[in-house]
């Protein structure tokens, strides 16, 4: 089960980063997001899993497709999809993976072993959100409002000036 979801997620991510067509890439990244939601459900975090499905598959994927259509990204660029400096970027990413993988393998003995599934339901999460985590909740609400207004302002600005 774990290897199946891992293959789905990593395959989707890898396809998203290598496919030429932007629309194909957006669809593959949706597959990767779905795999991550399955991971969350597999780890007994139901609320985070369904939030992942609603926000990433429902909202962010649609937003990306709209951005691709609005910027005419479906046309293939003439000079390749990869940057001129790809030979710098790839070793950096490979090096970071080597460091992270080494850290995980080297500390794998200290990691906790199998534990019982935590009995946490949405009720507990709701109580915690308006109790202990109420200040972060308010800040996130403010951030989302500011981000919505900011995104509209940024996207509208040029059109107003052109009039």
């Amino acid at each position: 089960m774990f290897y199946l979801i891992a293959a789905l997620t990593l395959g989707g991510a890898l396809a998203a980063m290598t496919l030429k067509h932007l629309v194909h890439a957006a669809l593959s990244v949706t597959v990767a997001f779905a795999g991550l939601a399955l991971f969350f459900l597999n780890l007994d975090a139901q609320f985070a899993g369904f939030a992942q499905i609603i926000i990433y598959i429902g909202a962010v994927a649609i937003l990306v497709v709209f951005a691709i259509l609005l910027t005419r990204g479906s046309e293939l660029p003439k000079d390749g999809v990869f940057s001129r400096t790809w030979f710098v970027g790839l070793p950096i990413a490979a090096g970071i993976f080597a460091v992270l993988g080494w850290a995980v393998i080297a500390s794998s003995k200290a990691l906790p072993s199998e534990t019982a599934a935590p009995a946490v339901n949405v009720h507990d999460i709701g109580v915690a959100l308006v109790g202990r985590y109420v200040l972060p909740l308010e800040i996130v609400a403010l951030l989302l409002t500011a981000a919505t207004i900011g995104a509209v302002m940024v996207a509208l600005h040029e059109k107003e000036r052109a009039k």
Partner: protein
Amino acid sequence: MGSPLTGYLIVAALLFSIGLAGALVRRNAIMVLIGIELMLNAANLNFIAFWRYSPHPEALTGVMFAIFSIAVAAAEAAVGLGLVIAIHRHTGTTDLDKMNRMKG
């Protein structure tokens, strides 16, 4: 490979590296944003996995951090794609190699 946590951490590290490689290598600004989203998601996977195998999962810290991180990532995606659309309207391109002026 005694702990089941190791597999999740390795997957998250791979996902982070794929996202980083995409963000560094792709020309299109939208694909760079998608790479950043993948990196944020890899961090979320780590939070949830550590929460699941922690000695006190009833404290809900990992899940809360992941939920707030998802909210911040959604805001980041909205603003980032709005910026990409504004830049495309201004310069007519989303190719990052061609965006070499700070003042249009």
